């Protein structure tokens, strides 16, 4: 018996929605295999990794706390990705958002004004925008590759954050530890549900995803971005301004990452640390792809990705699973998705020899 590959006359709509599911299932199966190879009971490990973290309300709150930055940044990145504008610098833009937002919290330390939080978020957005503006500028003016520039800026931003918490923004009473003061309550996001740590930032992120949905699916600019991504020449032919689209694509990632950075330090972290993100900026790239660059899909895939983070922590605590497994799962998920997408354009036919002769 043979498996024959043949192109579909038209791309399959069913497969477009199924392939993320196939990818997720394949990743879970791989997980079981990896757990077994590590000498763990696969069922027990599976439970610790994927069930245990979300078995109660608190856990579900944690899931959304982790998913919030992923869905917000993922939506922002998807706006650019749709136009083939590859902003890989969300990690750095998030750090800048944290720096800008954190700076506000530090200089107004002790104040109880209601304006501090909004100001932090605003400044976080500005920080992210400024950092994303660099690759956008260099791309539109000098044609410099935005992937490499935005990526290099990640390293620069993380070093900058490290420098600041070691130096200018360090808590003077912190015994020399590289961290800022703990923020006052007025600079902290309020908790939404008793008994969880679910904070206002999660709601803000979900609203952000909603705005992204309207923008991408109903808006004319979203249409223009889509055209530019599918056929750049067609966008020029129609008179859509590609440079403007580059700016929109880059800055949408910057603004969401910047806000996410500010929300992180005003939410779960509560101060500036040398690192404010466990790779959310990179994971959001996967979230965007697995979510089909569609805000609805991104919402779902951010929950899956957040579960991987939680599972990594829980597996480490309960079963001594190395947390690096999370990174492997993330990579595998994207691999499987890209592989499964093949089925959108091609189908497999089972062919027996007899049929070929007959």
């Amino acid at each position: 018996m043979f498996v024959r590959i043949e192109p579909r006359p038209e791309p399959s709509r069913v497969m477009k929605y199924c392939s993320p599911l196939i990818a997720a299932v394949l990743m879970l199966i791989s997980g079981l295999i990896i757990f077994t190879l590590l000498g763990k009971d696969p069922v027990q490990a599976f439970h610790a990794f994927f069930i245990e973290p979300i078995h109660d309300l608190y856990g579900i709150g944690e899931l959304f706390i982790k998913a919030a930055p992923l869905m917000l940044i993922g939506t922002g990145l998807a706006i650019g990705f749709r136009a083939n504008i590859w902003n890989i610098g969300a990690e750095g833009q998030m750090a800048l958002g944290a720096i800008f937002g954190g700076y506000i919290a530090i200089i107004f330390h002790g104040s109880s004004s209601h304006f501090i939080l909004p100001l932090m978020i605003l400044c976080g957005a500005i920080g992210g925008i400024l950092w994303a503006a660099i690759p956008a500028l260099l791309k539109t003016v000098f044609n410099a590759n935005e992937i490499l520039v935005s990526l290099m800026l990640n390293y620069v931003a993380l070093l900058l954050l490290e420098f600041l918490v070691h130096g200018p923004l360090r808590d003077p009473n912190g015994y020399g530890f590289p961290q800022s003061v703990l923020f006052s309550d007025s600079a902290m996001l309020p908790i939404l549900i008793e008994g969880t740590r679910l904070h206002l930032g999660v709601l803000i992120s979900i609203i952000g995803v909603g705005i992204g949905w309207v923008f991408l699916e109903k808006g004319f600019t979203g249409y223009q971005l889509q055209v530019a991504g599918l056929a750049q020449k067609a966008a020029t032919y129609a008179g859509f301004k590609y440079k403007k689209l580059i700016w929109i694509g880059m800055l949408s990632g910057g603004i969401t990452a910047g806000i996410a950075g500010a929300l992180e330090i005003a939410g779960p972290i509560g101060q500036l640390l040398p690192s404010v993100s466990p790779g959310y900026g990179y994971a959001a790239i996967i979230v965007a792809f697995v979510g089909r660059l569609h805000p609805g899909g991104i919402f779902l895939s951010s929950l899956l990705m957040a579960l991987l983070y939680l599972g990594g922590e829980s597996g480490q605590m309960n079963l001594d699973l190395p947390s690096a497994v999370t990174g492997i799962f993330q990579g595998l998920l994207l691999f499987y998705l890209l592989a499964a997408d093949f089925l959108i354009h091609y189908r497999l036919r089972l062919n027996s020899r007899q049929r070929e002769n007959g």
Partner: protein
Amino acid sequence: MNNTPRLELQGMTKIYPSVIANDSIDLRIYPGEIHAVLGENGAGKSTLMKAIYGVVKPDRGRILWNGKPVVIQNPAHARKLGIGMVFQHFSLFETLTVTENIALAMDDSPRLEPLAERIRTVSADYGLPLDPERLVHSLSVGLRQRVEILRCLLQEPKLLIMDEPTSVLTPQAVRIMFDTLRRLAAEGCSILYISHKLDEIMELCHKATIIRGGKVTGYAKPAEETAASLARMMIGKELPICSGKRPVISGRKCLQVNDLSTKSADPFGTDLQAINFSVSEGEILGIAGISGNGQQELLYCLSGERLVDDKNLITIYDVPVGHLNPDQRRNLGLGFVPEERLGRGAVPGMSLTYNGILTAHRHGMVKNGLLRFRKAAEFAQQCITGFSVQCGSKDDPITSLSGGNMQKYITGREILQQPKLLIVSQPTWGVDVGAANVIRQAMIDLRNNGSAVLVVSEELDELFEICDRLIVLAQGRSSPSLQVQDTNKEEIGLWMSGMFPGGPKEKTPRTTTQEQDGYVC
């Protein structure tokens, strides 16, 4: 002639998921014979030739080579048998030299220096001189075809396949190529000549196999047929002609191009030098010329996809537009159908409706930055009905349309916006006869309603059929304009090689340059 056919095809069949490209095709060609494969665009000629050359694997059928059955595995195998092919869309490598290009098609890994020497001798011998050191991107389309032909000749082929070879040549250059082909045939080489141009086939070919919709519809001796009888076999009915051309209307000048010069954005492109012409309301101006002589650059400047330094070089109704982008020019009444359909005129991966929005969004399809899907759907439906586009529905992907239907949809989208000026590039490239007729008729109707129409085409027949006036573009320069009734294909053909008043070849007709024979460089 020998009794064993050099090549015989029996029941060749190739099925693609959406279409049967070849349906049990039989064909026979003898040594020294020039054999036409005649059929309109999309009839399945190219697929058949690719099967012979080993690029495409047939699903059924047999190939007999000199009477013995063979299964042609790949092009290298075909070349080993003695089959050479000149592709319609050349298979060349732009950043490599002529020698390197030819070396890549040789199977015995030749050393480059002696090969260059052979290229020089053989090309001179066949009257197709070529410099082996040149980089291919610096060659004209005609010379590129020479590289393709030489690549075959150096292998001393027994069978040469030529796929639509004349579209890149002036009428004069066509004659030179015919001489070369006749000489090859006299030397015993068989030639499969693929074309949809009836006059060429009647002039050149000994026999013809006619294909329609993937099936053989007849065999003929072209010399004994008429254009009408061949056409009947090719499309199953008489060749349709456009109708309803009214006498010249003397309207206002619409588009004016004044001394337009630009450097091409593509380092391998053609620079424009002092282009001058105008188009008035109620007329169709045709721009003749072989592709690659600045057409693309000119159209980019006219559409606004490329901006011009001095805005006054291009005006629409005396309004300078050189600095306006395509969107702004459309607001002034411009419509434009580019020669690249998928990827420029239409967006692959989007439905017909979404493709309508691409340029028609200005007609009430956007409100407060949001799309109005109902308006867009209505418009798409109008295009489909108005231009009899055959499709499942307006929500189908644009890629599900055939070449002809896609061109009808794009042309319809531009025309239904009632442009004051419509620019169409290569309106019927790769389009079937029926759709071509719809498109030409639509352009004539638009002219009759008082719009200005500019058509850029390689097909002289088409230009003579629909245009009022013609200019020629050669090596980035424009010729003076001629009324269609005051000129003929011979004169336009000469002009296409640059020999027009003020043209690049005006002062040196037929001198020592290597493109003396009418090829345009």
